[in-house]
Protein backbone atom coordinates (compact mmCIF):
# COMPACT_ATOMS: atom_id res chain seq x y z
CA UNK A 1 0.00 0.00 0.00
CA UNK A 2 1.36 3.38 -0.99
CA UNK A 3 0.96 6.07 1.63
CA UNK A 4 1.09 9.83 1.83
CA UNK A 5 1.76 11.93 4.90
CA UNK A 6 -1.02 14.47 5.36
CA UNK A 7 0.01 17.47 7.50
CA UNK A 8 -3.37 17.28 9.26
CA UNK A 9 -4.25 13.57 9.35
CA UNK A 10 -0.87 11.88 9.38
CA UNK A 11 0.10 8.89 7.23
CA UNK A 12 -2.84 7.63 5.16
CA UNK A 13 -3.40 5.34 2.16
CA UNK A 14 -2.72 7.34 -1.02
CA UNK A 15 -6.18 6.28 -2.28
CA UNK A 16 -7.62 8.78 0.20
CA UNK A 17 -5.95 11.68 -1.59
CA UNK A 18 -6.72 13.58 -4.77
CA UNK A 19 -4.02 15.08 -6.94
CA UNK A 20 -4.75 18.78 -7.47
CA UNK A 21 -2.28 19.89 -10.14
CA UNK A 22 1.07 21.64 -10.24
CA UNK A 23 1.65 24.55 -7.91
CA UNK A 24 1.38 27.74 -9.99
CA UNK A 25 1.42 31.33 -8.80
CA UNK A 26 -1.87 32.92 -9.80
CA UNK A 27 -1.46 35.98 -12.05
CA UNK A 28 -2.59 39.39 -10.85
CA UNK A 29 -6.32 39.44 -11.63
CA UNK A 30 -6.36 43.17 -12.42
CA UNK A 31 -3.46 43.13 -14.84
CA UNK A 32 -3.22 39.69 -16.47
CA UNK A 33 -3.93 39.59 -20.22
CA UNK A 34 -5.51 36.68 -22.10
CA UNK A 35 -2.17 35.05 -22.86
CA UNK A 36 -1.15 35.05 -19.20
CA UNK A 37 -4.51 33.59 -18.19
CA UNK A 38 -4.34 30.90 -20.87
CA UNK A 39 -0.91 29.89 -19.65
CA UNK A 40 -2.06 29.85 -16.04
CA UNK A 41 -5.19 27.80 -16.81
CA UNK A 42 -3.91 25.28 -19.37
CA UNK A 43 -0.13 25.06 -19.43
CA UNK A 44 2.11 22.98 -17.19
CA UNK A 45 5.83 22.65 -16.66
CA UNK A 46 5.22 18.87 -16.53
CA UNK A 47 8.80 18.25 -15.45
CA UNK A 48 10.45 14.91 -14.80
CA UNK A 49 12.05 15.12 -11.36
CA UNK A 50 11.01 16.80 -8.15
CA UNK A 51 7.95 19.04 -8.55
CA UNK A 52 5.65 20.91 -6.15
CA UNK A 53 1.99 19.94 -6.36
CA UNK A 54 -1.35 20.50 -4.70
CA UNK A 55 -2.88 17.47 -2.99
CA UNK A 56 -6.12 17.10 -1.07
CA UNK A 57 -7.05 14.62 1.64
CA UNK A 58 -10.47 13.85 0.17
CA UNK A 59 -12.46 12.77 3.28
CA UNK A 60 -11.41 15.87 5.21
CA UNK A 61 -11.17 18.26 2.21
CA UNK A 62 -7.79 19.33 3.48
CA UNK A 63 -5.47 20.92 0.90
CA UNK A 64 -1.69 21.01 1.19
CA UNK A 65 1.47 20.99 -0.94
CA UNK A 66 3.75 18.07 -1.70
CA UNK A 67 7.21 17.82 -3.22
CA UNK A 68 7.18 14.66 -5.29
CA UNK A 69 9.61 13.01 -7.71
CA UNK A 70 7.68 12.31 -10.93
CA UNK A 71 10.18 9.68 -12.07
CA UNK A 72 10.62 7.55 -8.95
CA UNK A 73 7.14 8.32 -7.50
CA UNK A 74 8.66 9.22 -4.12
CA UNK A 75 6.99 11.90 -2.03
CA UNK A 76 9.81 13.94 -0.53
CA UNK A 77 7.81 16.17 1.79
CA UNK A 78 4.32 17.49 2.43
CA UNK A 79 3.60 20.85 4.03
CA UNK A 80 1.01 23.57 4.41
CA UNK A 81 0.63 26.45 2.00
CA UNK A 82 2.07 29.70 3.26
CA UNK A 83 1.88 33.19 1.78
CA UNK A 84 5.37 33.08 0.29
CA UNK A 85 6.01 29.43 -0.48
CA UNK A 86 8.43 27.54 -2.75
CA UNK A 87 9.54 29.18 -6.01
Amino acid at each position, binding site marked *: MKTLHCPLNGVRNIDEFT*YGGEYHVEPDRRQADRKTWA*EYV*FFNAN*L*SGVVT*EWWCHTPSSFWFLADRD*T*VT*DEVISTYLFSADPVE
Partner: protein
Amino acid sequence: MPFGLLKYGLAKTYPAKNLFGESRPLKKSYDVVIIGAGGHGAAGAYYLAKQYGITNVAVLDKGYLGGGNTARNTAVLRSNYLTEEGVAFYKASLELYKSLSNELDLNIMFERRGQLTLAHSDAGIRNLRWRAEVNQHLGVRSRLMFNDEIAKMVPHLRMDTAARYPIMAGLWHADGGTARHDAVVWGYAKEAAARGVEFHQLTEVKGVDIDHGKVTGVRTTRGDVRCGKVIQAVAGSSSLVANMAGINLPIHTFPLQAMVTQPYKPLLEPHVSSPHHHVYIHQTSRGEFVIGGGSDPYPLYNTRATLPMRETLSAAVLELFPFLREARVMRQWAGITDMTPDYSPIMGESPVQNYYLDAGWGTWGFKATPISGNTMAELVATGQVPKLIAPFSLERFYRFEQVNEAGATAASH
Protein backbone atom coordinates in the same frame (compact mmCIF):
# COMPACT_ATOMS: atom_id res chain seq x y z
CA MET B 1 13.67 -27.40 -33.37
CA PRO B 2 12.74 -29.30 -36.52
CA PHE B 3 15.81 -29.98 -38.63
CA GLY B 4 14.10 -28.55 -41.74
CA LEU B 5 13.60 -25.19 -40.10
CA LEU B 6 17.23 -25.02 -39.01
CA LYS B 7 18.34 -25.84 -42.54
CA TYR B 8 16.06 -23.16 -43.94
CA GLY B 9 17.44 -20.61 -41.50
CA LEU B 10 21.04 -21.35 -42.40
CA ALA B 11 20.50 -21.62 -46.16
CA LYS B 12 21.98 -18.86 -48.27
CA THR B 13 19.05 -19.06 -50.70
CA TYR B 14 16.88 -16.92 -48.45
CA PRO B 15 19.14 -14.30 -46.88
CA ALA B 16 17.63 -12.23 -44.07
CA LYS B 17 16.81 -8.76 -45.29
CA ASN B 18 17.53 -5.68 -43.23
CA LEU B 19 14.25 -3.86 -43.78
CA PHE B 20 15.11 -0.70 -41.90
CA GLY B 21 18.50 0.13 -43.45
CA GLU B 22 22.02 -0.61 -42.24
CA SER B 23 23.28 1.25 -39.19
CA ARG B 24 25.58 4.04 -40.30
CA PRO B 25 27.05 7.30 -38.99
CA LEU B 26 24.82 10.36 -38.86
CA LYS B 27 25.22 12.74 -41.77
CA LYS B 28 26.16 16.35 -41.07
CA SER B 29 22.88 17.66 -42.36
CA TYR B 30 19.35 16.58 -43.28
CA ASP B 31 16.41 18.36 -44.84
CA VAL B 32 14.11 17.02 -42.12
CA VAL B 33 14.85 15.46 -38.75
CA ILE B 34 12.05 13.54 -37.08
CA ILE B 35 12.42 13.06 -33.32
CA GLY B 36 10.82 9.75 -32.39
CA ALA B 37 10.83 6.48 -34.37
CA GLY B 38 7.38 5.35 -33.36
CA GLY B 39 4.36 4.91 -35.59
CA HIS B 40 3.87 8.64 -36.09
CA GLY B 41 7.52 9.36 -36.88
CA ALA B 42 7.81 6.44 -39.29
CA ALA B 43 4.51 7.34 -40.97
CA GLY B 44 5.59 10.96 -41.34
CA ALA B 45 8.86 9.85 -42.93
CA TYR B 46 7.03 7.51 -45.30
CA TYR B 47 4.57 10.12 -46.57
CA LEU B 48 7.34 12.75 -46.90
CA ALA B 49 9.28 10.34 -49.11
CA LYS B 50 6.37 8.90 -51.05
CA GLN B 51 4.16 11.90 -51.64
CA TYR B 52 6.66 14.73 -51.69
CA GLY B 53 9.95 13.07 -52.72
CA ILE B 54 11.68 14.35 -49.57
CA THR B 55 14.09 11.56 -48.68
CA ASN B 56 17.01 13.35 -47.03
CA VAL B 57 15.34 12.58 -43.73
CA ALA B 58 16.64 11.14 -40.45
CA VAL B 59 14.33 9.58 -37.89
CA LEU B 60 16.04 9.61 -34.49
CA ASP B 61 15.03 7.66 -31.39
CA LYS B 62 16.64 7.31 -28.00
CA GLY B 63 15.32 3.74 -27.82
CA TYR B 64 14.45 1.47 -30.69
CA LEU B 65 11.97 1.47 -33.55
CA GLY B 66 8.40 1.34 -32.25
CA GLY B 67 9.61 0.64 -28.72
CA GLY B 68 7.57 3.28 -26.92
CA ASN B 69 3.84 3.76 -26.88
CA THR B 70 3.54 2.20 -30.34
CA ALA B 71 4.30 -1.08 -28.58
CA ARG B 72 2.32 -0.30 -25.42
CA ASN B 73 -1.08 0.83 -26.68
CA THR B 74 -4.09 -1.50 -26.77
CA ALA B 75 -4.51 -1.29 -30.57
CA VAL B 76 -8.02 0.13 -30.71
CA LEU B 77 -9.15 1.71 -33.97
CA ARG B 78 -12.32 3.81 -33.96
CA SER B 79 -13.66 7.13 -35.17
CA ASN B 80 -16.81 7.48 -33.02
CA TYR B 81 -15.72 10.70 -31.39
CA LEU B 82 -17.83 13.60 -30.19
CA THR B 83 -16.67 16.73 -32.03
CA GLU B 84 -16.87 17.26 -35.77
CA GLU B 85 -13.15 18.07 -35.85
CA GLY B 86 -12.27 14.85 -34.02
CA VAL B 87 -14.60 12.60 -36.03
CA ALA B 88 -13.38 13.93 -39.39
CA PHE B 89 -9.75 13.44 -38.36
CA TYR B 90 -10.06 9.87 -37.01
CA LYS B 91 -12.36 8.89 -39.88
CA ALA B 92 -9.63 9.87 -42.35
CA SER B 93 -7.18 7.76 -40.33
CA LEU B 94 -9.39 4.66 -40.48
CA GLU B 95 -9.78 5.15 -44.24
CA LEU B 96 -5.99 4.92 -44.57
CA TYR B 97 -5.87 1.87 -42.28
CA LYS B 98 -8.26 -0.02 -44.60
CA SER B 99 -5.70 -0.30 -47.40
CA LEU B 100 -2.53 -0.10 -45.33
CA SER B 101 -1.54 -3.78 -45.60
CA ASN B 102 -1.50 -3.49 -49.40
CA GLU B 103 0.17 -0.12 -49.42
CA LEU B 104 3.01 -1.18 -47.09
CA ASP B 105 3.22 -4.73 -48.44
CA LEU B 106 3.05 -6.06 -44.90
CA ASN B 107 0.08 -7.64 -43.16
CA ILE B 108 -0.87 -5.24 -40.40
CA MET B 109 -3.71 -7.60 -39.42
CA PHE B 110 -6.37 -4.92 -39.73
CA GLU B 111 -9.68 -6.35 -38.60
CA ARG B 112 -12.90 -4.39 -38.71
CA ARG B 113 -14.76 -6.08 -35.89
CA GLY B 114 -16.77 -3.12 -34.69
CA GLN B 115 -16.89 -1.38 -31.37
CA LEU B 116 -19.67 -1.30 -28.79
CA THR B 117 -19.69 1.51 -26.22
CA LEU B 118 -22.06 0.91 -23.30
CA ALA B 119 -24.28 3.32 -21.39
CA HIS B 120 -25.35 2.58 -17.81
CA SER B 121 -27.28 5.79 -17.17
CA ASP B 122 -29.54 8.33 -18.89
CA ALA B 123 -26.62 10.71 -19.16
CA GLY B 124 -24.62 7.93 -20.80
CA ILE B 125 -27.36 7.34 -23.38
CA ARG B 126 -27.50 11.04 -24.13
CA ASN B 127 -23.75 11.01 -24.81
CA LEU B 128 -24.12 8.02 -27.16
CA ARG B 129 -27.05 9.64 -29.02
CA TRP B 130 -25.02 12.78 -29.48
CA ARG B 131 -22.06 10.84 -30.85
CA ALA B 132 -24.30 8.78 -33.15
CA GLU B 133 -25.76 11.98 -34.64
CA VAL B 134 -22.38 13.67 -35.17
CA ASN B 135 -20.88 10.44 -36.56
CA GLN B 136 -23.70 9.81 -39.04
CA HIS B 137 -23.60 13.42 -40.17
CA LEU B 138 -19.96 12.91 -41.15
CA GLY B 139 -20.45 9.49 -42.75
CA VAL B 140 -19.17 7.37 -39.85
CA ARG B 141 -21.15 4.22 -39.12
CA SER B 142 -22.44 4.61 -35.55
CA ARG B 143 -25.93 4.01 -34.21
CA LEU B 144 -27.72 3.57 -30.94
CA MET B 145 -28.41 -0.05 -30.01
CA PHE B 146 -30.65 -1.37 -27.22
CA ASN B 147 -30.38 -4.33 -24.92
CA ASP B 148 -32.16 -7.00 -27.00
CA GLU B 149 -29.77 -6.44 -29.87
CA ILE B 150 -26.71 -6.08 -27.60
CA ALA B 151 -27.51 -9.42 -25.91
CA LYS B 152 -27.57 -11.14 -29.32
CA MET B 153 -24.36 -9.53 -30.50
CA VAL B 154 -22.35 -10.12 -27.30
CA PRO B 155 -23.96 -13.13 -25.61
CA HIS B 156 -21.43 -13.25 -22.74
CA LEU B 157 -22.10 -9.71 -21.61
CA ARG B 158 -23.89 -9.46 -18.25
CA MET B 159 -27.26 -7.93 -19.18
CA ASP B 160 -29.30 -8.66 -16.06
CA THR B 161 -30.86 -5.80 -14.16
CA ALA B 162 -29.51 -7.06 -10.83
CA ALA B 163 -26.14 -5.56 -11.76
CA ARG B 164 -25.20 -2.53 -9.75
CA TYR B 165 -25.13 -0.43 -12.92
CA PRO B 166 -27.25 -2.32 -15.47
CA ILE B 167 -26.51 -1.79 -19.16
CA MET B 168 -29.15 0.49 -20.70
CA ALA B 169 -27.97 0.97 -24.28
CA GLY B 170 -24.94 0.93 -26.53
CA LEU B 171 -23.34 2.81 -29.39
CA TRP B 172 -22.63 0.36 -32.19
CA HIS B 173 -19.70 1.58 -34.29
CA ALA B 174 -19.34 -0.76 -37.25
CA ASP B 175 -16.19 1.02 -38.49
CA GLY B 176 -14.23 0.20 -35.33
CA GLY B 177 -11.51 -2.42 -35.31
CA THR B 178 -7.99 -3.34 -34.44
CA ALA B 179 -4.60 -3.87 -36.10
CA ARG B 180 -1.23 -5.17 -35.07
CA HIS B 181 0.53 -2.09 -33.67
CA ASP B 182 4.10 -3.33 -34.24
CA ALA B 183 3.39 -4.17 -37.86
CA VAL B 184 2.15 -0.64 -38.51
CA VAL B 185 5.44 0.98 -37.50
CA TRP B 186 7.50 -1.76 -39.17
CA GLY B 187 5.59 -1.34 -42.40
CA TYR B 188 5.96 2.43 -42.49
CA ALA B 189 9.65 2.25 -41.53
CA LYS B 190 10.36 -0.44 -44.13
CA GLU B 191 8.79 1.56 -46.94
CA ALA B 192 10.40 4.82 -45.79
CA ALA B 193 13.83 3.17 -45.56
CA ALA B 194 13.37 1.70 -49.05
CA ARG B 195 12.98 5.27 -50.32
CA GLY B 196 16.17 6.49 -48.63
CA VAL B 197 15.01 7.65 -45.19
CA GLU B 198 17.55 6.89 -42.44
CA PHE B 199 16.45 5.41 -39.13
CA HIS B 200 18.87 5.99 -36.26
CA GLN B 201 18.00 4.04 -33.15
CA LEU B 202 19.72 4.59 -29.77
CA THR B 203 20.28 8.20 -30.84
CA GLU B 204 18.90 10.53 -28.21
CA VAL B 205 18.24 14.17 -28.96
CA LYS B 206 19.76 16.20 -26.14
CA GLY B 207 19.25 19.70 -27.46
CA VAL B 208 17.70 21.77 -30.24
CA ASP B 209 19.64 24.59 -31.90
CA ILE B 210 17.63 27.69 -32.63
CA ASP B 211 18.87 30.81 -34.37
CA HIS B 212 16.70 33.93 -34.51
CA GLY B 213 13.57 31.94 -33.72
CA LYS B 214 14.28 29.33 -36.38
CA VAL B 215 15.44 25.76 -35.82
CA THR B 216 18.85 25.01 -37.35
CA GLY B 217 19.77 21.61 -35.97
CA VAL B 218 19.66 19.08 -33.16
CA ARG B 219 22.33 17.86 -30.78
CA THR B 220 22.33 14.12 -30.20
CA THR B 221 24.27 11.57 -28.19
CA ARG B 222 25.97 10.65 -31.48
CA GLY B 223 26.91 14.15 -32.57
CA ASP B 224 25.33 17.34 -33.85
CA VAL B 225 23.19 17.44 -36.95
CA ARG B 226 22.06 20.43 -38.96
CA CYS B 227 18.61 20.38 -40.47
CA GLY B 228 16.05 22.49 -42.24
CA LYS B 229 13.02 21.28 -40.37
CA VAL B 230 12.18 19.23 -37.31
CA ILE B 231 9.09 17.18 -36.53
CA GLN B 232 8.67 16.29 -32.88
CA ALA B 233 6.77 12.97 -32.93
CA VAL B 234 7.20 11.54 -29.44
CA ALA B 235 4.65 10.24 -26.95
CA GLY B 236 5.20 10.16 -23.23
CA SER B 237 7.82 12.88 -23.28
CA SER B 238 6.20 15.60 -25.40
CA SER B 239 6.80 18.26 -22.73
CA LEU B 240 10.42 17.25 -22.13
CA VAL B 241 11.34 17.28 -25.83
CA ALA B 242 9.46 20.52 -26.49
CA ASN B 243 11.29 22.11 -23.55
CA MET B 244 14.55 21.62 -25.45
CA ALA B 245 13.13 23.94 -28.10
CA GLY B 246 11.96 26.35 -25.41
CA ILE B 247 8.30 25.42 -25.90
CA ASN B 248 5.90 24.94 -22.98
CA LEU B 249 2.93 22.65 -23.63
CA PRO B 250 -0.49 22.25 -21.94
CA ILE B 251 0.21 18.63 -21.01
CA HIS B 252 0.13 16.46 -17.92
CA THR B 253 1.86 13.10 -18.29
CA PHE B 254 0.15 10.06 -16.74
CA PRO B 255 0.79 6.31 -16.98
CA LEU B 256 -2.06 4.32 -18.54
CA GLN B 257 -2.18 0.69 -17.52
CA ALA B 258 -3.54 -2.32 -19.34
CA MET B 259 -3.39 -6.07 -18.90
CA VAL B 260 -3.95 -9.24 -20.85
CA THR B 261 -5.38 -12.62 -19.85
CA GLN B 262 -4.53 -16.15 -20.85
CA PRO B 263 -5.86 -17.09 -24.30
CA TYR B 264 -9.40 -18.42 -24.82
CA LYS B 265 -11.22 -19.76 -27.85
CA PRO B 266 -12.77 -16.98 -29.93
CA LEU B 267 -15.88 -15.76 -28.12
CA LEU B 268 -15.89 -11.97 -28.23
CA GLU B 269 -15.98 -10.38 -31.66
CA PRO B 270 -16.36 -6.62 -31.17
CA HIS B 271 -14.39 -4.31 -28.94
CA VAL B 272 -16.53 -3.50 -25.88
CA SER B 273 -16.07 -0.30 -23.93
CA SER B 274 -17.73 1.09 -20.83
CA PRO B 275 -17.00 4.75 -20.06
CA HIS B 276 -19.00 4.34 -16.85
CA HIS B 277 -16.74 1.57 -15.53
CA HIS B 278 -13.62 3.14 -17.10
CA VAL B 279 -12.76 -0.11 -18.81
CA TYR B 280 -12.60 -1.57 -22.29
CA ILE B 281 -11.89 -5.05 -23.53
CA HIS B 282 -11.34 -6.96 -26.71
CA GLN B 283 -10.15 -10.41 -27.64
CA THR B 284 -7.04 -10.56 -29.78
CA SER B 285 -6.71 -12.94 -32.70
CA ARG B 286 -4.44 -14.98 -30.41
CA GLY B 287 -7.39 -15.36 -28.03
CA GLU B 288 -6.16 -13.22 -25.15
CA PHE B 289 -8.44 -10.61 -23.61
CA VAL B 290 -6.85 -7.18 -23.59
CA ILE B 291 -8.29 -5.12 -20.74
CA GLY B 292 -7.43 -1.49 -20.70
CA GLY B 293 -8.05 2.02 -19.81
CA GLY B 294 -6.65 2.44 -16.31
CA SER B 295 -5.14 5.90 -16.05
CA ASP B 296 -3.07 6.46 -12.92
CA PRO B 297 -4.56 8.99 -10.47
CA TYR B 298 -1.58 11.37 -10.67
CA PRO B 299 1.19 12.21 -13.16
CA LEU B 300 4.30 10.07 -13.43
CA TYR B 301 7.12 9.40 -15.90
CA ASN B 302 7.32 5.71 -15.10
CA THR B 303 6.00 2.55 -16.75
CA ARG B 304 5.58 0.49 -13.60
CA ALA B 305 2.39 -1.55 -13.22
CA THR B 306 0.51 -1.42 -9.92
CA LEU B 307 -1.63 -3.85 -7.94
CA PRO B 308 -4.34 -1.24 -7.18
CA MET B 309 -4.81 -0.68 -10.90
CA ARG B 310 -5.06 -4.42 -11.55
CA GLU B 311 -7.77 -4.60 -8.89
CA THR B 312 -9.61 -1.62 -10.38
CA LEU B 313 -9.52 -2.98 -13.94
CA SER B 314 -10.49 -6.49 -12.79
CA ALA B 315 -13.43 -5.26 -10.72
CA ALA B 316 -14.68 -3.18 -13.63
CA VAL B 317 -14.38 -5.87 -16.28
CA LEU B 318 -16.04 -8.51 -14.06
CA GLU B 319 -19.13 -6.28 -13.95
CA LEU B 320 -19.37 -6.78 -17.72
CA PHE B 321 -17.97 -10.30 -18.24
CA PRO B 322 -18.30 -12.35 -15.03
CA PHE B 323 -16.83 -15.48 -16.68
CA LEU B 324 -13.43 -13.77 -16.62
CA ARG B 325 -13.22 -14.39 -12.87
CA GLU B 326 -11.57 -17.68 -13.84
CA ALA B 327 -9.06 -16.01 -16.13
CA ARG B 328 -5.43 -15.58 -15.22
CA VAL B 329 -3.75 -12.30 -15.95
CA MET B 330 -0.59 -12.98 -17.94
CA ARG B 331 0.85 -9.50 -18.29
CA GLN B 332 0.20 -6.01 -17.04
CA TRP B 333 2.01 -2.94 -18.29
CA ALA B 334 1.86 0.82 -18.60
CA GLY B 335 2.34 3.34 -21.36
CA ILE B 336 3.07 6.99 -20.70
CA THR B 337 0.30 9.24 -21.98
CA ASP B 338 0.63 12.96 -22.62
CA MET B 339 -2.82 14.19 -21.63
CA THR B 340 -4.00 17.51 -23.01
CA PRO B 341 -6.79 19.47 -21.26
CA ASP B 342 -9.30 18.71 -24.05
CA TYR B 343 -8.19 15.14 -24.97
CA SER B 344 -7.26 16.21 -28.50
CA PRO B 345 -3.72 16.23 -29.87
CA ILE B 346 -1.45 19.23 -30.42
CA MET B 347 -0.44 19.26 -34.08
CA GLY B 348 1.06 21.80 -36.41
CA GLU B 349 3.25 24.85 -36.13
CA SER B 350 5.04 25.88 -32.95
CA PRO B 351 6.44 29.17 -31.68
CA VAL B 352 9.77 28.10 -33.22
CA GLN B 353 9.92 28.45 -36.99
CA ASN B 354 10.33 25.14 -38.89
CA TYR B 355 9.82 23.16 -35.67
CA TYR B 356 6.59 21.19 -35.98
CA LEU B 357 4.65 19.55 -33.17
CA ASP B 358 2.99 16.15 -33.29
CA ALA B 359 2.36 15.94 -29.56
CA GLY B 360 -0.19 15.40 -26.82
CA TRP B 361 -1.22 11.97 -28.02
CA GLY B 362 -2.64 10.90 -24.68
CA THR B 363 -4.67 7.74 -25.15
CA TRP B 364 -5.62 8.33 -28.82
CA GLY B 365 -2.31 8.08 -30.70
CA PHE B 366 -2.32 4.64 -32.31
CA LYS B 367 -5.59 5.05 -34.20
CA ALA B 368 -4.31 8.37 -35.58
CA THR B 369 -0.97 7.00 -36.83
CA PRO B 370 -1.62 7.07 -40.61
CA ILE B 371 -3.42 10.40 -40.75
CA SER B 372 -1.01 12.18 -38.43
CA GLY B 373 1.95 10.99 -40.52
CA ASN B 374 0.11 12.04 -43.65
CA THR B 375 -0.91 15.50 -42.46
CA MET B 376 2.41 16.28 -40.76
CA ALA B 377 4.22 15.38 -43.99
CA GLU B 378 1.90 17.70 -45.92
CA LEU B 379 2.53 20.51 -43.44
CA VAL B 380 6.29 20.11 -43.56
CA ALA B 381 6.47 19.71 -47.34
CA THR B 382 4.06 22.49 -48.33
CA GLY B 383 4.25 24.86 -45.38
CA GLN B 384 0.43 24.94 -45.36
CA VAL B 385 -1.51 23.67 -42.37
CA PRO B 386 -3.85 20.91 -43.63
CA LYS B 387 -7.51 21.62 -42.90
CA LEU B 388 -7.91 18.38 -40.93
CA ILE B 389 -5.37 19.40 -38.27
CA ALA B 390 -5.94 23.16 -38.16
CA PRO B 391 -8.26 22.81 -35.11
CA PHE B 392 -5.49 20.99 -33.18
CA SER B 393 -2.93 23.81 -33.22
CA LEU B 394 -1.16 24.80 -30.01
CA GLU B 395 -2.66 28.25 -30.57
CA ARG B 396 -6.13 26.97 -29.70
CA PHE B 397 -5.38 27.20 -26.00
CA TYR B 398 -4.55 30.90 -26.31
CA ARG B 399 -7.84 31.44 -28.15
CA PHE B 400 -9.76 29.33 -25.59
CA GLU B 401 -11.02 27.17 -28.48
CA GLN B 402 -10.58 23.65 -27.17
CA VAL B 403 -11.70 20.57 -29.07
CA ASN B 404 -13.29 18.68 -26.20
CA GLU B 405 -13.15 14.92 -26.63
CA ALA B 406 -13.35 14.10 -22.91
CA GLY B 407 -16.79 12.58 -23.50
CA ALA B 408 -15.56 10.10 -26.09
CA THR B 409 -13.14 7.98 -24.06
CA ALA B 410 -13.49 5.13 -21.59
CA ALA B 411 -10.07 5.60 -20.04
CA SER B 412 -10.35 6.83 -16.47
CA HIS B 413 -9.15 10.38 -16.04
